[in-house]
């Protein structure tokens, strides 16, 4: 009884804090990421008070129908990134390993499964879900991970199965996924106990599309030399397009961010002082080492100007019909970067190399993320053949700090930069500049 009362008081506290924060934000010109995320998580954590439903959803899952039904989406993967960035990953991974999970399992999954049992991590765990939505466009691990959580919390699970698209998008795949969208809508109706709001989802779809456009525009500013934004900044600002796409907050935040980047361009301010070398990053960030990596590359006057990861949340806009969002999202969610063939991925990488005019390609071979890391060696070979730029592969893990060996990675980065510097010294463009 006592425990229940203190639990309720805690939720009321979180609720009031969120309300107060939201109130004060009205008087600010632009809101910070921290403010927005605090309100988001306090609303999610006090959902029981406001009688709202909470859905846990995979990062690449179709969230718009949930938002249209006032369900608060919560992302274990975003939570995993927060755990990694606050260097709490190793402890939680160890907890999961003590529970019997293999150390080869994805560290987001390990951290999340462990966190559910101990309410640990930087925000004391995620709010309990009322339903789980799992889309396997990002990987196969999420299937078992969400099944584990569905059993643990005893809540319904919806699985959206998006077949792998080696090349195109066949009619069979189209109708298969489209049919599941209808099932998904029925699932949400059952969970919420009311009819689906088709009018509202149109508005949410517009906002989602607009948010993706703005995010792409923010990333595009890095094509400027010097780049006003680096991949490390993008890793940070990404949180909103992942967690809140389909809401007006995203539009406001990225509009302000875009204006800031344009201002930096106008004033010639770069994300790395003295930018001399421009690099492309592949795979999920090493969340516990972003600062170290930024400093390491910056010490060589190198800026990671773009990456394949943050652009994944705006990479399929060409498949979206803004005026028919629900119908077109099936294709957009199926054809994301991690669900296409290696040749297609390599084409996108090469397009980014050209667009951002980079001197080198850094690939994080991520022990956790198998679908992201599996084709990397082939992509590296294709890039070396097609563009002839130096490539570096570093082995690490996004959350589990035990997979990072500092001095080995440091030597690799130094040697890689030595090659790039040597090349640039002898490049024709540089010779012309010298006259």
């Amino acid at each position, binding site marked *: 009884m006592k425990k229940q009362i203190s639990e309720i008081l805690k939720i009321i506290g979180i609720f009031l804090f969120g309300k107060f924060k939201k109130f004060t934000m009205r008087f600010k010109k632009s809101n910070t990421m921290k403010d927005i995320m605090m309100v988001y998580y306090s609303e999610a954590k006090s959902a029981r008070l406001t009688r709202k439903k909470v859905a846990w959803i995979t990062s690449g899952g179709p969230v718009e129908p949930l938002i249209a039904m006032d369900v608060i989406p919560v992302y274990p993967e975003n939570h995993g990134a927060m755990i990694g960035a606050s260097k709490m990953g190793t402890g939680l991974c160890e907890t999961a390993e003590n529970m019997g999970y293999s150390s080869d399992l994805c560290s987001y999954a390990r951290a999340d499964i462990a966190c559910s049992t101990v309410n640990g991590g930087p925000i004391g765990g995620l709010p309990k879900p009322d339903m789980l939505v799992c889309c396997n466009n990002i990987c196969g691990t999420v299937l078992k991970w969400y099944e584990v959580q569905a059993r643990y919390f005893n809540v319904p699970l919806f699985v959206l199965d998006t077949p792998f698209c080696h090349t195109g998008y066949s009619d069979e795949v189209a109708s298969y996924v489209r049919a599941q969208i209808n099932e998904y809508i029925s699932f949400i109706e059952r969970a919420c106990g009311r009819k689906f709001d088709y009018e509202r989802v149109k508005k949410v779809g517009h906002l989602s599309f607009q948010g993706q456009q703005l995010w792409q525009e923010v990333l595009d500013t890095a094509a400027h030399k010097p780049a006003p934004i680096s991949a490390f900044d993008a890793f940070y600002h990404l949180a909103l397009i992942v967690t809140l796409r389909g809401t007006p907050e995203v539009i406001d935040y990225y509009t302000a961010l875009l204006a800031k980047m344009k201002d930096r361009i106008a004033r010639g301010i770069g994300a790395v002082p003295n930018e001399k070398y421009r690099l492309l990053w592949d795979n999920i960030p090493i969340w516990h080492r972003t600062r170290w990596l930024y400093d390491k590359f910056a010490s060589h006057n190198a800026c990671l100007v773009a990456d394949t990861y943050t652009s994944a949340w705006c990479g399929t806009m060409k498949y979206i019909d803004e005026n028919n969002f629900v119908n077109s999202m099936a294709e957009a969610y199926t054809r994301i970067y991690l669900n296409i063939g290696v040749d297609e991925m390599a084409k996108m990488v090469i397009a980014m190399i050209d667009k951002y005019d980079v001197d080198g390609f850094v690939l994080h071979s991520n022990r956790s993320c198998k679908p992201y890391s599996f084709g990397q*060696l082939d992509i590296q070979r294709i890039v*070396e053949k097609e563009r002839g730029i*130096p490539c570096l592969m570093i*082995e690490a893990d996004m959350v589990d700090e035990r*997979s990072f*060996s500092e*001095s*080995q990675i440091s*030597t*690799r980065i*130094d*040697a890689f930069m*030595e*090659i790039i510097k*040597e090349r640039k010294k002898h490049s024709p463009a540089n010779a012309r500049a010298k006259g």
Partner: protein
Amino acid sequence: MRTAGIDIGSITAKAAIFDNGKIIATKVIFTGYNAELAGQKVYDEVLSEAGLGKNDVEKIVSTGYGRNAVAFADKSFTEIMAHAAGAHFLNPRIRSIIDIGGQDSKAILLDDKGKVKNFVMNDKCAAGTGRFLEVMARALEVNLDEFGTISKKSSSPSKISSLCTVFAESEVISLIARGEKRQDIIAGIHESIASRVSSMLARIGVQKPAMITGGVARNSGVVLALSKKLDMEMEVSPYAQVNGAIGAAILATSL
């Protein structure tokens, strides 16, 4: 111009003095726990070997894992650059370098000017390195310097299937217990290193002619196993262990 190169590795610290296009002295000592002290000591020793004083050397370059601990160096380069410079100096035709050191092994591809085109290094694992051999030598109670000669007596090398140094050690111990011949076990160890290293090399594609450098190049058994596995001749650097230090001294001439 007289220059010096200091290569601080995980097990040994190496130094070389380069004088007008010639290697005039080299030195190898154990690194121990203090890389900074090892750097000073090996430098003092190589100077006395060459009969020189500190003021006789114009520029110093450091390399290796402890490169940043050598405070008196004018500049540091990674061992990739240093090995490339050293091998290119010894034989300008060399296009691939296979360096097997104390705790890492690497392959470096060079262009016709001796510039590094690409490289690959082992990661997270000591199998296929000098440390692996040291552990095995201890388990077999054989002096590491005899490994090459002993392995050549083998007619049927043992199979070492473990990918991990620690597990391979227990595997070797069980082979000893089963009464397998020492020469067969050692030859098996060499083959397992060759297979480890060659799969890493396949990532960047080895080009002929290839040179093998690093302390492990002194083990003729590993060189033989590697040439067999890769089906190509391996040129062994006459200065295998100090190749990085020589390269560093050469890099110092262009500072």
